[in-house]
């Protein structure tokens, strides 16, 4: 177990409230609650409202989940329906059950 408390800073880019976005956000919240309880921050960015932010994180696909911290930066695109892939992408070791 790590001594230093790690914090996951997650950004979810969406474009309006589409079905995919809603699914993705719901999925993300579920995984985080399960594996990263109290160790995460989720920021949802709606590009329809703030289009200028798309360039900074090199967003192409919607929805995209960006993990800035901890390094390395990873992007997970899609509705996050595959839990295993998301966890690998977020660098989360499935905690022992």
């Amino acid at each position, binding site marked *: 177990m790590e001594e230093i408390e790690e914090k996951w800073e997650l950004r979810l880019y969406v474009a309006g409230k589409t079905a995919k976005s809603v699914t993705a956000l719901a999925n993300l919240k579920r995984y985080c609650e399960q594996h990263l309880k109290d160790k995460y921050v989720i920021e949802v960015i709606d590009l329809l409202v703030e289009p200028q932010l798309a360039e900074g994180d090199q967003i192409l696909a*919607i929805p995209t989940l960006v993990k800035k911290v901890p390094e390395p930066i990873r*992007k997970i695109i899609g509705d996050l329906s595959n839990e295993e892939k998301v966890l690998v992408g977020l660098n989360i070791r499935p905690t022992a059950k």
Partner: protein
Amino acid sequence: MSTEPSRQINTNIPSLPKVKSGIKGLDEITEGGLPQGRPTLICGGAGCGKTLFSMEFIVHGALSFNEPGVFMAFEEKSEELAVNVASLGFDLNQLQRDNLLKMDHVQINRSEIEETGEYDLDGLFIRLGHAIDSIGAKRVVLDTIENLFSGLSDQGIIRAELRRLFGWLKDKNVTTIITAEKGDGALTRHGLEEYVSDCVILLDHRVNNKISTRLLRIVKYRGSVHGTNEYPFLIDSDGISVLPVTSLTLDHAVSSERISSGIAGLDRMLDGKGFFRGSSILISGTAGTGKTSIAGCFANETCLKKERCIYFAFEESPMQIIRNMLSINMDLQKHVDDGFLKFHASRPTLNGLEMHLVAIHKMVKEFKPRVVILDPITNLITVGSVSEVKSLLIRLIDFLQAEQITVMFTALTLNGIVAEQTDESVSSLVDSWLLVRDIELNGERNRGLYVMKSRGMKHSNQVREFVISDTGLELVDVYLGPEGVLTGSARRAQELHEETGVLLRNNAITRKDREIDRKRMMLESQIANLRQEFESFQEELNKSFIEEELTKSFMEKNRSELTSNRDL
């Protein structure tokens, strides 16, 4: 057809609106530019100039046509692009500050992307839309959008999204260029031509015999006529220039103005007036027959008349030509300094034939000469086949004649074979053909010049001896004697011989004259004698006559006296 019997050609039907690309020559081939508000696909292999092509489209749009543009790069970073095109004088950073250009580098890093579940490319749409709206862009470039295929794995989604993207761009009414890499046997690696159906331009970079040529072809252009040939294009310090359409019609204006060749004797052979302005002249001959000297002379004459001339030298350097011409009393350096003469020396192997043509085009457009000289065209064969050279010359002659520029070619023929290939293929194109030949006689080589043909004028059928001396070029009548044509020292000997004959004859004539004089003097003195004789005879006669008269009058007087005395 029967359903629309009244349908006629209506000139009011709006034709496809086009936007000028600003790329030299392209707008002529496409008759106005790229389709406005529609996507155009530019495809080609690596390094064929796709990015530069699209960059020119954006920059010219921003600078010349007041159409701001968005450049979305999927390959190179904005800073790299800016450095790459800085050599062409494009200041991308300044354009961005002026809000005429917006650059966006889309980076797809496969290693940090994980795909899971459904997604779409709304992010790209939003970025592009934001960029377009922020500067009111009218032009968009997506430089190599195919990179999406390597960055993302779900091809089905990409294809569907691309189709949506192109439709969306049309709705936005922006003129778009999409670049794509050439694929095996297909125009593009991922079949983008399926989605972009309005205009497809193929760029090619071909290497033949180690010489590269860039070519452009419009594969399709829906709703517009366009040239279908492969057009060579050049990338140089001014960017891209495409060679305009080959003139297929023969309808250029002709001039009946005559210009001197600079050699009085040659002008005399050509009806006494020289060449037609805007005609093409071929000088062929074996090595060392003075072809370059004739060309130099023509250039000199042109510049003396304060007209401009470009000399394309494919064999000698300008310095060499100037030095050599100075030895026959022609100062070309002066004309260069005065800005009437321009040399352009390049080895034929410097680039492909088409590139030479483009380079000649460019220089002619810039310098606006009245006379162009190419010396020698036979060297061009080292870079292309005879038929290629011929097609190049056809196009060159067409172009120059349309501009009323006189062109002079020189061609090297192999010794002994007059109808050498180049002559054969080119001679039918040119208006005047002069042949300089070696005449070998009595251990001496001399030059003979013929006019093989000269369209539209009476020209001499005689062989003239062509003499190059310190004072310049001269044509001398050859001596035609019982032993055939005499040239060089044989001619000189014959001339001397004739001069001696003249002297002897003159001497004989004066002797005869003197004899006649003497004869006349003798006769005259005889006549004087006779006259004197006659006079004395006449005097004698007169004397006796007077005496008779006197006697008669005296006797009469006596008789009258006697009579009067008798009367007394």
